[in-house]
């Protein structure tokens, strides 16, 4: 009777089942595959929309299945879950369209789309998980399902990138497991609770809790690419563009960042975490990552690598927002989860378009490409400017709230981090924009495909334009109902103000 109990599961299944079917589809059944993918994506969209509406009206969506004697597999839709679910659902749809165009006539598509769907399943699972063990399960599933995507090209380089990726993530996963089990032995519960569930623990567990927190951060930090743990991300750029897009914008790094959000808010709780004194180290770590990632990005000539380092830097805004530990900073962090996703996916789509249409991989090859592909590059420009934090694009809103949040709790130094990072962002993005728009084409494109009088295929062009518009809209109409900002405010309210 109670359909609400099944909807989270359905959301997860809506990409899992198509994925499993796609695995077994023969390579040449393109149409079936596309249909399946799109049906799944739309179905998920509808379901998520339903949940959004429901949660807005105060309904509960929760699926609960027994896993261990005292531990359940819980999928629950709360505001925080939904913001991430919506992001991944929308971007999955877009990325699927993009991937269909990108991988046209390339080999192993069944495998690719199969894992692609699994990857989204895992992400959605992460978003919806209602306790740590569920989170952990989907988190590891994500690791596993991304791996084949990273090594998809099957070159030696890809393999090595895959190994690096695994070396990092498996290590992180191990730490997470340890932290989770440890926490479980201390508290006997793993259920995500607003403002955490560790209050009851006495002072004698203080050290243990600090270590657990550190373990969590290290574990999630691997995927969120916090600084000493970011090494895998630039290497993983070897994957096809839709994968990089998904990896950077939605799935992997976001999963890490989302994990940090969950741990701080729903496991430890802001207050308890602040009491433990772990927040400012976290903030510093995020700050270092932000600056370091930007600095490294400056040196990259490979477009995707530069974007990768940019991701390292940008994702830490989320962490920073969480670590600043104020309601407004929370809004900034959470909303950046969405904003960074939209903007970064745009950039990666564009990078993919360049590679696919013109064979351009290096920034030095991009001279004058704005005339060849104005729409793509316009989208790229929006994304890049958004990353810098140029108003009124989405990135500005995030930075705005981060800065305000920092001021609110008296962490003035964050302003310098933000400013420095923006400066560096500008330093590595603006030269690209300069090249695209103002330089003359110096050499023939490395490997040009002809798409008639269009600049590229529709399936390739549409997604970046759409996401760029979304990025623009997210900034421009930030205060509209159901906008990411509004949801972030709802979340902050729940975390800070509700009894």
């Amino acid at each position, binding site marked *: 009777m109670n359909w609400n109990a099944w909807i989270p599961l359905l959301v997860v299944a809506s990409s899992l089942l198509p994925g499993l079917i796609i*695995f077994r589809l023969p390579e040449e059944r393109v149409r079936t595959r596309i249909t399946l993918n799109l049906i799944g994506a739309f179905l998920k969209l509808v379901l998520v929309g339903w949940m959004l509406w429901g949660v807005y009206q105060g309904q509960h969506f929760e699926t609960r299945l*027994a*896993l*261990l*004697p005292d531990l359940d597999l819980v999928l629950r839709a709360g505001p925080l879950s939904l913001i991430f679910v919506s992001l991944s659902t929308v971007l999955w749809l877009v990325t699927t369209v993009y991937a269909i165009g990108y991988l046209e006539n390339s*080999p*192993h598509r069944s*495998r690719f789309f199969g894992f692609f769907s699994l990857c989204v399943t895992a992400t959605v699972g992460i978003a919806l998980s209602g306790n740590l*063990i569920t989170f*952990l*399960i989907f988190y*590891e*599933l994500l*690791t*596993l399902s991304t*791996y*084949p995507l990273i*090594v*998809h090209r*099957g*070159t*030696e380089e*890809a*393999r090595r990138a*895959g*190994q690096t990726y*695994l*070396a990092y993530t*498996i*290590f992180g*996963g*191990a*730490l997470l*497991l*340890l932290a989770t*089990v*440890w926490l*479980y*032995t201390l508290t*006997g519960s793993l259920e995500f609770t607003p403002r955490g569930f560790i209050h009851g623990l006495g002072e004698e567990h203080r050290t243990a809790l600090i270590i657990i927190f550190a373990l969590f951060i290290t574990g999630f930090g691997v995927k969120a690419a916090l600084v000493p743990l970011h090494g895998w991300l630039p290497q993983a750029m070897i994957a096809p563009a839709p994968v990089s897009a998904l990896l950077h914008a939605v799935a992997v790094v976001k999963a890490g960042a989302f994990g940090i959000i969950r741990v701080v808010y729903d496991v430890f709780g802001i207050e308890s975490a602040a009491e433990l004194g772990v927040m400012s180290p976290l903030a510093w770590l995020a700050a270092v990552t932000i600056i370091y990632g930007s600095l490294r990005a400056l040196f990259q000539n490979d477009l995707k690598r530069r974007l990768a380092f940019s991701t390292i830097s940008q994702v830490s805004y989320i962490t920073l927002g969480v670590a600043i530990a104020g309601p407004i900073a929370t809004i900034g962090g959470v909303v950046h989860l969405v904003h960074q996703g939209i903007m970064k996916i745009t950039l990666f789509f564009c990078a993919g378009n360049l590679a696919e249409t013109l064979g351009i991989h290096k920034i030095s090859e991009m001279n004058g490409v704005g005339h060849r592909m104005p729409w793509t590059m316009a989208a790229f420009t929006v994304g890049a400017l958004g990353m810098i934090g140029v108003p009124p694009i989405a990135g500005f809103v995030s930075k705005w709230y981060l800065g305000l949040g920092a001021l609110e709790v008296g962490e003035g130094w964050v302003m310098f981090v933000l400013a420095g990072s923006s400066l560096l962002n500008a330093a590595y993005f603006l030269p690209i924009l300069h090249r695209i728009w103002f330089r003359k084409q110096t050499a023939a494109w490395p490997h040009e495909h002809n798409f008639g009088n269009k600049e590229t295929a529709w399936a390739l062009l549409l997604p970046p334009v759409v996401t760029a518009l979304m990025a623009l809209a997210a900034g421009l109409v930030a205060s509209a109902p159901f906008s990411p900002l509004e949801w972030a405010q709802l979340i902050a309210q729940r975390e800070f103000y509700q009894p």
Partner: protein
Amino acid sequence: MGITFIDFPWAIALILLPLTGGLSCFLWPSVSKILGLVTVIGVMLSATGLGWLVIDKGVYHYLVGGWGAPLGIELYVDGLSLLMLMVTALVALGVSIYSIHYFELSYQRRFWPLWLFLLTALNALFLSADIFNLYVTLELMGLAAVALATLTGSHDAFTAAMRYLLATLLGSLAFLFGVVLLYHSFGSLDIAVLSERFESNITAWAAFGLISAGLVLKTALFPMHFWLPPAHANAPAPVSAVLSALVVKASFYILLRLWLEIFSQLDTDVDILFGFLGSIAIIWGSLQALRQTRIKLLVAYSTVAQVGYLFLAFPLAEKVGVTAWSAAVYLILSHALAKSAMFLAAGNLLRFGGHDRIADLDRVAQRLPITVAAFALAGVSIMGLPPSGGFISKWLLLQSALVQSQWGLVGVMLIGGVLAAAYIFKVLGRAFTQAPLPHEPGVVPATMEWAALLLAGGAILLGFFASEILAIIEIGSPFGAGEVKL
């Protein structure tokens, strides 16, 4: 006679079916394939029947010959042995399906009787409640295993099997010596009677030492693992699967059983030693696996590492007995399924490529997707990643270690998991790469691929039925009642 379905002596069927099957296969070799399959399906059904019976009515006793404890032999089924029987049946089914097309005709005739006798031995072993009977089943199992391990007929296989034979004979002898001492100290061979009469004296200690040592040798705990990797790596794939999945576990099962029932009354620190060796085994086995260039050796070394995990339960059980032991049992189950799947998959790869060098895997991910999927899924369980049986066991182990603040063991488990991932993805990573010159691939029948996937899927599914399975383990409370709640 009025034998209803539930009263049917399933336990006896579990022994007699494979025995008769083996004999029939020997008598009528030309139909051995069918006979074997029918037998294994029968075994599967019997295990299910027994499971039903035990879950329904609790612990199951059977007095063979009607004589009863001190004089005769008893069969005893509690949750622990039931699960062992069930997983045996499952692995047996998978392996048998796989073997239909794996062996050539002449090897079929050799394989089936030996395999069914091995199955007999395993079933009898898990059912037995009599230490001398255990010795006989151990020997039966050992000889069958050695014989099966030689089936590839290669030089390496014979050398490895010879080493295996010597190790298994030595282990059995040490066990027998222990049995002798126990019998002469306490005047019984029945485990239950022994546990009643047991008292800690010097003879009991010696018996304990001998039995532990013998079984540890057979279980291939570091550094007694020397015989295992070559033997498992050079055997035919289905045999490797059975050896790693079940045979090694059988001796561990005995060790566990005796430790729990009899030797728990000894006040020893051996558990710490076991934990220590287990830790080294995890690290060492994983490192060795990482070093290998051949898949089957890699998988074999992985078994060495996984055996190490089993022994971690000993030091952990001191305070949280049930959790730690359940973890070990769960690990046995999931490892049995996963490792057999892994070996079967490795066999497919070997057949496909004509070799099992990891570096030259030549795009198998595309050519043999099901096999690679099986390998990967099994790998997930071996690594202890969720959602899989391996994860549950690792979870429970970690939990029990953390409750007692056993940091060393915690570290070892984590490092072991990471290393496991490293060696498994060493293979999987290569599966996606492409060799510059694709060679002519061998044909791998679908049954072989699906058999591997079936088992791997089982290992994953175990991760979803933890509460049910943990409840089954508790039947007859083999780990003693009264547990500190975590």
